[in-house]
C-alpha cells in the first residue's frame, strides 16, 4: 500500500503534492475527451500521468472524473429504452474504464516514479453533475452506487479514493462511509463559492463536523478559482483537525471544453499555493486548466516547513 508513506508525511506535518488536471490537459494536447480516452488512447493518458510524476507529484489521480454507470445511463429514458437503442457494452463499460484508469496510473508509476513513493488516488466525483447539488440521488441510493465504484477501483489497486468536486454534506457522508467500510483511505474535496460555502450553502464548519468523526483522511477544496478557494480555506482551516489541501482551477469552463488563460502562470500559481501552505494546508495540486508545469512549480513546497 503506497498510501502509508503519504499518510505518514501528512501525519508529520509535511507537504504532499497532488497532480494537476488530466481532463483539460487531454484537451490542451488537442485530443478530444469523449470517452476519457481510456480505451482509445491509453498510452496518451498514461503519458500525462508520467509527466505529473516527473513534475514531482506524490499523489496522482486517475482519469475517471464522472466515470460511472449513472453518467451513461442518464442519457436514456430507462432500461427499456437503453436496450432499444443503446450501445451493447453499456452495462459494464463504466466499470471497465474505471479499472483501466487505475491500471494506467499504476503503470505510469512503474515507469516514472523511480523509487519515489507515489500513491494512486481513484478520482471519483458526485454521482450527478458536480455543480448541481439539486440533482443528487438520495444517500441510500448514493451508497449503493459508490460501493460498486469503490469496489472496482479497490480491486484494480487504487491506494486511496479522492472524492473530488463534492457539493453537499449528505453525498460526501454517504461516499465516505462506503469508502471506510471497504478499508480505503479517503480524501474528500469540495467545490466552494465566493463566500467559502459549499454549493448547497452548507458551511465548512458543518462539513468538518460531519466528516471527521467518520474517519476522513484529509479535507480539500477544488474546482473553483483561486479567489474562491482562498475564501473557502479561511472558513475551513479554523475547524479542520485532519490534513487539509487545495487545488483550484484556472482558466474558464467552456462546456464541454476549457479556455486556457495566462492569468495564473506557474510562478503566480505557486504564490497562491504558498499562501495556503502558510495558512496550514498540506496537500497542494491543480484542478482544471493546470499543467505539469504548474505542478513542477509546486514541487518545491515540499521542502518548506511554513507552519501556520
Amino acid at each position, binding site marked *: 500500500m503506497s498510501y502509508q508513506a503519504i499518510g505518514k508525511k501528512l501525519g508529520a506535518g509535511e507537504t504532499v503534492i497532488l497532480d494537476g488536471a488530466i481532463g483539460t490537459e487531454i484537451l490542451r494536447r488537442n485530443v478530444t475527451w469523449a470517452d476519457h480516452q481510456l480505451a482509445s488512447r491509453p498510452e496518451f493518458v498514461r503519458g500525462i500521468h508520467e509527466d505529473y510524476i516527473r513534475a514531482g507529484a506524490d499523489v496522482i489521480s486517475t482519469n475517471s472524473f464522472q466515470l460511472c454507470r449513472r453518467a451513461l445511463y442518464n442519457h436514456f429514458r430507462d432500461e427499456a429504452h437503453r436496450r432499444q437503442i443503446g450501445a451493447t457494452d453499456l452495462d459494464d463499460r463504466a466499470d471497465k474504464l474505471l479499472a483501466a484508469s487505475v491500471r494506467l496510473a499504476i503503470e505510469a508509476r512503474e515507469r516514472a516514479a523511480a523509487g519515489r513513493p507515489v500513491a494512486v488516488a481513484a478520482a471519483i466525483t458526485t454521482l450527478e453533475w458536480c455543480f448541481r447539488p439539486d440533482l443528487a440521488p438520495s444517500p441510500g441510493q448514493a451508497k449503493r452506487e459508490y460501493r460498486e465504484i469503490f469496489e472496482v477501483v479497490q480491486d484494480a489497486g487504487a491506494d486511496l479514493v479522492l472524492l473530488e468536486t463534492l457539493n453537499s454534506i449528505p453525498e460526501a457522508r454517504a461516499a465516505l462511509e462506503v469508502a471506510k467500510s471497504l478499508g480505503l483511505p479517503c480524501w474528500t474535496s469540495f467545490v466552494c463559492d465566493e463566500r467559502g460555502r459549499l454549493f448547497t450553502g452548507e458551511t465548512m464548519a458543518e462539513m468538518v463536523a460531519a466528516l471527521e468523526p467518520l474517519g476522513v483522511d484529509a479535507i480539500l477544496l477544488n474546482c473553483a478559482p483561486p479567489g474562491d478557494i482562498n475564501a473557502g480555506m479561511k472558513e475551513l482551516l479554523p475547524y479542520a483537525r485532519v490534513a487539509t489541501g487545495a487545488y483550484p482551477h484556472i482558466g*474558464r469552463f467552456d462546456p464541454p471544453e476549457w479556455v486556457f488563460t495566462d492569468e495564473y502562470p506557474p510562478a503566480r500559481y505557486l504564490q497562491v499555493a504558498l499562501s495556503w501552505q502558510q495558512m496550514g494546508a498540506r496537500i497542494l495540486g491543480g484542478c482544471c486548466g493546470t499543467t505539469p508545469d504548474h505542478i513542477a512549480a509546486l514541487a518545491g513546497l515540499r521542502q518548506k516547513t511554513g507552519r501556520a
Partner: protein
Amino acid sequence: MYQQLEARLKSREPVLLDGAMGTELVRRGVRWRKHGLLTDADSVQRLHEEYLAAGADVMRTNTFQLNPRIYLNVFRNRQHMRHIGAPGLEDLTPRLLRTSVRVARQARANAGREKQAAIAGVLAPLEHCFRPDLAPAFEQASAEQLELARVFAEEGADLLLAESMNTIAEARAVAEAARTVGLPVWISFVIGPEGELLSREPLAQAIAEVEKLGAQAVLVNCAPPAEIGRALAKVKVATRLPYGGFAHIGKFSPPSWKFEFFPQFTETENWPPERYASEAQRWREEGATILGGCCGTTPAHIAAVNTSLHARREGARSA
C-alpha cells in the same frame, strides 16, 4: 421557397431530407464543441454540400439540441456561469443558430440549389431528447422555443423542423412558436420502445394536437428502422397531413459526461446504404412522402434513398 415544397407535398411527390449532421461530423473526426459551428464550420458546410449532391431537397441546420440550457445546465446557476464560464456563453446560442443558417445557405449557394433546396431550422427538446421526464412545462417551453424560432425566422430559414420531440406539451410549444414567427413547421416525434412517444403519450394524440396548431407535416424519427416503419403505419391512419420518417442506424454510444447530446452512434455498419434505402422504400410504398436519415446515416445513405425513389418514379412512369 417553401411554396415549391408545399406543392410537392400536396401532389404526394416524395421529398428527400438530408441525413445526420452530428454523428457524421464526429465520425469524420470533428471535435464536438459548439456543434462544430465555431471551430469546424467548413466541415459543417461541406457535409451540407454532400447531402445536396446526394439529392436532398431539405437541408437541416446543425442545431439539434442547441439552446441556452445545454450550457446553463452544467453550472450551479447563471451567476456561477458568469463567474467561472467562458466569456460570451450567455449569448452563444443565437450566435450559433445564426451561423448554422448562414453555413447552410452558403452550401446551398455553392451547390447552385438556391431555388430548389429548402433550409429547415432544426428545433429539438430543450432538455435531453431522450429524457421526457426533464421537459420543462408548456409555458416555459413556449417562451424558450419562441426565442429560438425567432432567430431562425430573422435569418431567413424556409421552415422549422422540430425533431425528436418527446412530449406533446413541448411539441405544442414549438408549433405555436412557429405560428408566432410566421414560419411553416414540420414536427417529428421520437418513438419509444412501446411504439408511442418516448413519454409514452399516444402518437395519434400527439399528431392530432400539432395538426390543430397548424403543423404542415408530421414525422417520426430517432428510432431504429423497423420501429420507424411500425410507427409510420400508425401515423398513416392518424392524419391527412403529409408525413414521413427518418430512422437512426446503429447504437447510441453516449459519453461519460453530462454535457449536451453527444452525437456518437456505433455499429452502423449493419446498415449499409442499400439496406437503409430498401427500408425507406417500404415507407414510401406505405404512403410516407418525406424521407431522410437520422443519427448514423451519411450522404451515401441519402444518395441510396434518392436513387431508389427515382427508380420507383421512373418505373411508375414507364408502367
